[in-house]
Structures are given as structure tokens and as C-alpha cells.
């Protein structure tokens, strides 16, 4: 491959992704691209996202056509400086073949998910990247570790990243040993022991944020820093209609408008996303788990966990979607006003409760910056 010709490829977001649809080019042929520029909008069966440039250069060719599906690692465009001849680029494009993923053994050797037992309960988790610096991701109520689909691999470039399905969620066992924020915090602490991690940057989304804060009380030595994304436990308000709607929804028709409340851009709720959540809700035991947890969340929203966090002096990053309709962004603003020097805050516009999906690139960049 010629060094001065840089291909732009269809990304692979999560190991189940096989193809993506190119929705829109966000730049035009002939543009000078810098690292981090948003260049193409791609839609998968889970959600759509933006491909960012990983290299700088002159965009010589936009190959991918809009509204067309391309397999992962397909050639979407070409960067090359102006000294490269058009004919050389043509030759490169003609010669390009999608690498066979089975030959790509570095990727195939990483299992998508791992399983272990904590307190006798089966726990599914992902373990990516390597190094002494460990990041642990905790999803929210009704979610699972795939909520971090767009974050896991990006963070794993520089850190070892762990994400688990909390008890009763995803493919972990469908009971909750102790249905309280404190019980879940203790459980996560035990999970870290089981996987041999003494301390980690802990990032929690929504209910996962409350668990993260509670860990400062339950197992302070294991919390290096806190990332709180649209977190519960910072203020008294939570959208109880959402919680009840999520628990009660029995069909696609009932569930879709509930899930749309999670995003600023409702169109991100694809049929696949609704089907996946519905499949989870129909597993034996899940209904009981969700009813127990939602009752617990509604009865404990008055419990504000942030004072202990501030008192601990541990570095804390608060990220929020401006359009969050589940937990109001005002909670973040109030917290940052009272938080002192250890608290950083960033609010993203055009993002709702699932800000880590809707603004994945921004959230990843902000998190990586915070860890260093």
C-alpha cells in the first residue's frame, strides 16, 4: 500500500456490525481534512453515528454513495496530498480489497463477551484494551453493556476498559441479590475483586452514576475518579413516566415512544433497537427485576449522593445531554455550582439521556482527556 494514500474505511462499531449505510458526506471532495473532523454519517441497524477522520490530508475521492450499504472495512474515500497522481489513486481504488476478517487474527482473538460469577450470580462483561489504567463502565436502568457500543473500543485504545451487565440486566443472571443502590455498589466492588482490579476510573450512566457515587462510600479505595453521565442521585427529579412506561411496555408499539424519550433525535430509535430491548424484557425474571428496581429508584430519588463525592475530593467529571428528558440537566448545573475544584462539567447540545451514544466522539474525547 502506498504510504501517501490513506483510505477511509467503513468502521466496525461493536463486533456484531457487518455493514453500515452511508447517510451523508459531511465534507466535500477537495476539502482539507484534519484529525477529528466529522466526515461521514453512517447508520447501522443499532444506531447512526459519525465517522471521524483519524488522519489528516486532502480528501481526493468520496467513493461511497449516500443511502447505500457497505460492508465493514469497505473503502469509502481516499485521502492523499496533491502530489499523488489521479492515476495512482485510481489504481489504489481498483486494487483495494476488503480484508478477510477471519485472517485478521488480532481482532478475532478478542472475545466479544466474557462470563464470570459474582456472589453466585452469572455476570457478562467485556474486557478490552490493556494497561494499568483501568476504566469501568456502568450502564443504567434497563440497559446493558452494549449501551457503551461507541465508547468501549475508543477508550480501549489507551486504557483497559471493563463493562459489565449489572444484575438482572443484559445477559447477567436475572435476580438482584440486594435491590438497592448500596447493594449494587457492593456488587460492582466484588466484581472488580473477581476480575482482579484494585482501582479504576468508574463511569456510570443514569442509575449507574448513582452506583458509582455510592461506591465512594462502599469501597472508596477502588474508585480512582468518577464519571457521571446523566446520572441519577444528583438531584430530586426523575421522569417517573419513563420508568413506568419502560416497565409496562409489552409490545413494540408501546415501547418505541418510551425509548424515544432517551434521545434528542427520536429517529435514532431503530426497529432493531426496540426489538432488542423487547427481547430482553421478555426473558424470564426480567419483569420482576425491572419492577423492583423502578420502585427502588422512585423511592430513593430524594437521596442525594453527591455530598460524599465532593467530600472525598476524588476527581469527578459530569457529562450531560442538554435535551435529557429523563433526568434534568439542571441537576448537573447545581452540582457543578456546589462541587468545588474537584468537579468538572460539560453539557452537550443536541443530545438527550443517551449522550454517550448521541455524542459518542465528544464524550470519548472528554473522558480520555479527563483520565489523563
Amino acid at each position: 500500500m502506498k504510504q501517501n494514500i490513506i483510505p477511509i474505511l467503513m468502521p466496525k462499531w461493536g463486533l456484531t456490525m457487518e455493514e453500515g449505510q452511508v447517510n451523508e458526506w459531511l465534507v466535500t471532495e477537495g476539502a482539507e481534512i484534519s484529525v477529528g473532523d466529522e466526515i461521514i454519517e453512517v447508520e447501522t441497524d443499532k444506531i447512526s453515528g459519525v465517522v471521524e477522520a483519524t488522519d489528516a490530508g486532502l480528501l481526493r475521492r468520496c467513493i461511497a454513495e449516500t443511502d447505500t450499504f457497505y460492508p465493514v472495512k469497505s473503502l469509502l474515500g481516499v485521502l492523499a496530498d496533491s502530489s499523488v497522481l489521479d492515476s495512482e489513486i485510481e489504481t489504489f481504488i481498483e486494487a483495494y480489497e476488503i480484508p478477510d476478517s477471519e485472517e485478521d487474527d488480532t481482532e478475532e482473538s478478542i472475545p466479544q463477551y466474557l462470563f464470570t460469577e459474582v456472589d453466585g450470580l452469572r455476570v457478562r462483561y467485556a474486557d478490552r484494551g490493556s494497561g494499568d489504567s483501568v476504566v469501568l463502565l456502568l450502564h443504567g436502568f434497563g440497559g446493558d453493556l452494549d449501551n457503551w457500543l461507541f465508547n468501549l473500543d475508543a477508550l480501549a485504545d489507551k486504557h483497559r476498559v471493563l463493562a459489565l451487565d449489572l444484575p438482572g440486566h443484559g445477559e447477567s443472571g436475572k435476580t438482584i441479590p440486594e435491590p438497592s443502590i448500596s447493594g449494587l455498589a457492593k456488587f460492582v466492588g466484588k466484581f472488580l475483586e473477581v476480575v482482579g482490579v484494585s482501582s479504576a476510573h468508574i463511569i456510570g450512566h443514569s442509575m449507574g452514576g448513582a452506583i458509582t457515587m455510592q461506591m465512594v462510600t462502599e469501597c472508596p479505595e477502588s474508585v480512582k475518579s468518577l464519571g457521571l453521565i446523566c446520572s441519577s442521585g444528583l438531584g430530586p427529579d426523575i421522569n417517573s413516566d419513563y420508568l413506568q412506561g419502560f416497565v409496562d411496555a409489552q409490545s413494540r408499539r408501546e415501547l418505541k415512544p418510551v425509548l424515544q424519550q432517551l434521545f434528542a433525535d427520536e429517529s435514532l430509535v431503530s426497529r432493531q433497537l426496540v426489538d432488542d430491548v423487547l427481547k430482553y424484557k421478555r426473558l424470564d425474571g426480567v419483569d420482576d427485576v425491572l419492577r423492583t428496581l423502578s420502585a427502588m429508584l422512585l423511592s430513593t430519588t430524594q437521596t442525594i449522593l453527591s455530598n460524599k463525592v465532593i467530600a472525598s475530593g476524588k476527581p469527578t467529571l459530569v457529562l450531560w445531554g442538554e435535551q435529557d428528558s429523563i433526568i434534568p440537566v439542571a441537576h448537573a448545573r447545581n452540582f457543578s455550582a456546589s462541587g468545588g475544584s474537584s468537579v468538572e462539567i460539560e453539557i452537550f447540545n443536541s443530545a438527550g439521556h443517551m449522550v454517550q451514544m448521541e455524542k459518542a466522539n465528544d464524550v470519548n474525547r472528554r473522558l480520555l482527556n479527563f483520565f489523563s
Partner: protein
Amino acid sequence: MARTISFKEAINEALDQEMTRDPSVIVMGEDSIGGTGSPGEDDAWGGPMGVTKGLYGKHGNRIMDTPLSESAYVGAAIGAAACGMRPVAELMFIDFLGVCFDQIYNQAAKFRYMFGGKAETPVVIRTMVGAGINAAAQHSQMLTAIFTHIPGLKIVCPSNPHDAKGLLIQSIRDNDPVIFCEHKSLYGVEDEVSEESYVIPFAEANVMRDGGDATIVAYGMMVGKAMDAAKNLAKEGVECDVIDLRTLSPIDMETVLESVENTGRLVVVDESNPRCSIASDVSAQVAQQAFKSLKAQIEMVTAPHTPVPFTTSLEDLYIPSAEQVADSVRKTFN
């Protein structure tokens, strides 16, 4: 944990998990244990297609080999259901259900109604349907419509392993008689299926593909043909909605109507004979309830009005093909 298993294994797992969960679930049928001449051999065949293999070793006498008398053991299963058990009777081929029609449509289907809602009949009759393995005219029919006709019966016909497991678990937990139709050509099909138990509710069609230009409705083995047709049509620029009915009674017409109101074009694919079929039923309901949305005539793709031929070349012609489905969609644009 989701892993890839076959349609046959998905059904076996559903039976195993429900027998483990609920002691009132029993399984009975011809050769259900093994049929090698002696009960108790855990590695015996396990039914005519090996679907119940291994269950005897785990659940002992709650799985029974019955005499070659469908009318006797289907009647026994229905009676046991009325007395509080949850029997799953396996009746090799739907073609043989004729000998126990009284038990099914005049007894099981009527108990709840005639006893003023005080009686329940939670029986499941598992049975093989459809053509494709040269089993000839008496072992290859798609008789789903005959049972759909009877109020009081629920008719299920899954198209893939994931649905087969969830629908069978729902069938066993359901308090009404269910005819559970397994297409014999699908037993080897593999798919991702959760290891955990789960249910798929009845009357919930599955939208397999969102297109917007035309609606293809299918069930059972025809779903695969409809999907193949939709993929080919997409290359011509025609994007189809593909709807898998999954259950025929109760039926989810809401999803079908919603789709047709958007596309204005309907092709119904049914492996059964054309007269008084699921295809004609769905077509009639759409013609009546969404007539103003239709931009073209409704097309039906079915088997011809003949018995199922034995000869491979004729059987291949008998079964609706993806190409016929695609052609019918094209006709709605003429």
C-alpha cells in the same frame, strides 16, 4: 447467553426448560422417548426427527411413548389438560390430525366456551407441516388454515429458531389449546437463540424488513422465500416490508394494515393450497379494511390446488419460490 443452535434444538430446549420449570408439563407422542424398542435409552432417536432426544434422561416418566393411535393419545392429552396438566402432545404430521378432529375441534376448542369460562385446556399439539422432503401427499400438507378456521384454537407457525423457542414456551404457558406447527424443512436452520427462557406473545407479527414500497406477508418456511425475494427486488430499487405473521390465530392484522396503508401494495405468501387459505383470509381482511390505501390488486402466492406431489421436480414446482414472490410484487407495479 445467546449462541447459535438449530430450530430443532430450540424446540428441544423450550420443552426441557418448561418441564424443568413446571412439573405439570408432560410430553407424549409416538416415539417421543426413542423408538428404538426400549424406553430409557437416553441416546435413542427421540421422535421421528429427533426433536425430543435426551428429554427422557432428564425428565423420566414425564415423557411418554404412546401407541400408534392418534385419536387415543391426543384425546388423553386434552383430558389431562382439562384436569390440570400441561401436556405437549407430538403428532408427527399435521396430515394425521384428521383422525382426532373430534377431540380437537369439538372438545378442546369448546371447553372454555361451553363451561362458561370455568374450564381451561392448556394443551399443546406439536406437529410437522409443509413440503420439501419428498414425504408425498399424505405427509407434506400445509393444513394451517383448517385449524385457523376454528374459534377456540390458537395456531402458531414459527419461521426461525429464536421464534420457535419463545413461541413454544408461550404455547405451553397459554391456557388454551395450541396447534404448534413446525415446518419440517426448517429443523436444520440455525440462528442465535438465548439460553435463558423467554416468551414471544401471540398476535405479534414480526416486521423482518422495512421497505416502504410494497408489503409481503408470509409465515413459516415462506418467510425465508419472502426475504430472498425482497433482497432481489431491492437490487431493482423496490424496497419491501416483509412481515412474518408468526401466529395465525390470533392474527396481528394491525401490523399488516399499518404496513399496507403505507405501501399500498400487498403480496401474501402461503405454502398452503389457495382456496380458503391464510393468504385468502389476509387478502380479504386487507381488501375490506384498507381498500382505499391499495394502489394495485392484491397478489397471492400459494401452492396450486392439487395434492403435494412426491416427485422432486414436481414438488419443487409446487412450493412457492422466491422468484414467484418477486414476480408477484412486480405485478403490483404494472
